[in-house]
């Protein structure tokens, strides 16, 4: 297989994987969220190396709701009165 053809297959494979991700996220957001949680939990357990925990945190979905006291928005930023 020539390098050009191999590169073409690589680009096609990437496009297909990204497309599958987009479709899954748009059509089945709940399932994708559960999957991300299931993948992230083993990675962030105590005793795991820091880099693995960092990967786990990046895989984990953002919390659906903010804690009490927060204004409720996604990006509170620093509190000027704190």
């Amino acid at each position, binding site marked *: 297989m020539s390098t050009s053809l191999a590169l073409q297959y690589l680009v096609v494979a990437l496009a297909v994987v990204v497309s599958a991700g987009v*479709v899954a996220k*748009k059509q089945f957001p709940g399932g994708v969220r559960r999957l991300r949680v299931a993948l992230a939990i083993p990675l962030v357990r105590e005793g795991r190396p820091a880099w693995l925990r960092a990967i786990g945190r990046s895989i984990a979905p953002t919390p659906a709701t903010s804690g009490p006291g927060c204004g409720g928005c996604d990006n509170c930023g620093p509190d000027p009165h704190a």
Partner: protein
Amino acid sequence: MSASAIPLRLALVGNPNSGKTALFNLLTGSRQKVANYTGVTVERKEGRLLAPSGRSYALLDLPGAYSLNPASLDEAITRDLCRGFYPGEPAPDVLVCVVDATNLRLHLRFVLEVRALGRPMVVALNMADAAERRGIRIDREALQHALGVPVVETVAVRHNGAKALVQTLEAIADKPHAPEHALAADADLHEETRRLLSLTVTMPTRTARIDDVLDRWLLHPVIGLVTLSLVMFLIFQAVYAWATPMMDAIEAATAWLGAVVGNAMPAGPLRSLVVDGIIAGLGGVIVFLPQILILFAFILALEESGYLPRAAFLLDKMMAGAGLSGRSFIPLLSSFACAIPGIMATRSIQDPRDRIATIMVAPLMTCSARLPVYALLIGAFIPKQQVAGLLNLQGLVLFALYLAGIVSALLVSFVMKKWRRDKGEHPLLLELPSYRLPHPRDLAIGLWERAMIFLKRVGGIILALTILLWFLLSFPAAPADATMPLIDYSFAGRIGHAMTAIFAPIGFNWQICIALIPGMAAREVAVASLATVYALSAANDDAAAQALAPIISDGWSLATALSLLVWFIYAPQCISTWATIKRETNSWKMMAISAGYLFALAYLASLVTYQLAVAMGAG
């Protein structure tokens, strides 16, 4: 977090259409979060207002309410929240009562109800600019004095339009106090509203005169309905007639782009993906953008002009007979563009029974995503003939398909009405705003937003599905000793052939079966999928570049085409519509009923159509 750091809680309250949400957006910008109130499907919007002083406020946009004596779930939530009785929601520190300055007769009554709660409040005279343009003169200071609460003017659609409101909130934030005046518990609010209006507002006589003259004709039981029919007819004619030049241009641009890219790239899987998959697939969908924009231009213009509520009023009796209400009109009209905003628009229907009935039939309205399928099949199978020397046969078939959707919706809601125990009809309470000329800037913004939504869909879910379908149609490659067409060995080819066991009785071949699957994500993808399937099935590049219509007119029988047309009148909704029904009804059962009955209707109607057509020699 310390107690002192807890931000002051403000809540925007007001009648529907007072501009509350626009004001909320202006005050909070992107610092907002949208969710539902616990256990119900009423939207809860909270955001953060950052004042110029650096002080931060939590701002809640409460559901619109005509009264604190609730007639709907929205109004009950607003009442409970204002009183501080809603579970898990602390009482607001200050209520910002937003009123439409052009319609104080209606909105001031609600202000009096809110004031009676005895909580600190500010009145925001929203759309103050529109009131001024119409010659409505409001003595703000006199109103403030008469109400005993601060009154400020706001223009929610203008940058800095809420400056005075923020300054007032800053001033009272340190020391919120209850309203200075209060009415007796048994006071007549209408009487008090009339008194306040006479003291503080001067209305122009001309606006009321124009409204009266127009309403005499447009709300007439006969002339009004004829006018409404003419308006609807004009909209559908315009959608198909006016869009043609733009659609031709987009089609030509797509063909040119495919040829240029095809010549520039070396042969291989990447070229096939880009040319046969992405350009052919997306080009087949983008071509319908002009039609969508024309449809929305009319809907926006009708909405801005104040005509839509009158159309709802005119149709109330007819829709009540079929088990719907006049309030169903606007959601159903929105469903002609897309069922999703239509279903979401049912939130304005206060009665849960009418709301469910509207949600159930909304997918029967012919959404714009079905246009590509209709246009393709009509172009391929219906001859371009004049009927009675005046009407276009293809146009008539299209009109009949739209009509079939509407009639089916009325029949389904009528059957639902017969089945349910509560057969009573609920009165329609509507606010008829003054007529106004639509502002070109507002129309332009609305159309721009609609175009962006469509193009984001094309660049997002539709692009992703097209790539996935191309993959399924191209892999695995056929073996060296292949005897069947190469595409038959692909994943999609095998799935399509397996599906024909179910769909053969209604005349669908495997290519149609394949197109139905991505069509579940977005119905317009069915056409893009057919284009990709036939492009990849073609023996050579010339055949692949051929337009889809002549290919299917040669390859399909008339019975199959008619069956597919009928299928798409009822075709089960896209997955996003299912998700919207689930979210809006908070019920898996409702979603399953909706999907199930539409699939059954589609299959039965297509079966009858196909078998009859075959029996008549069209197979």
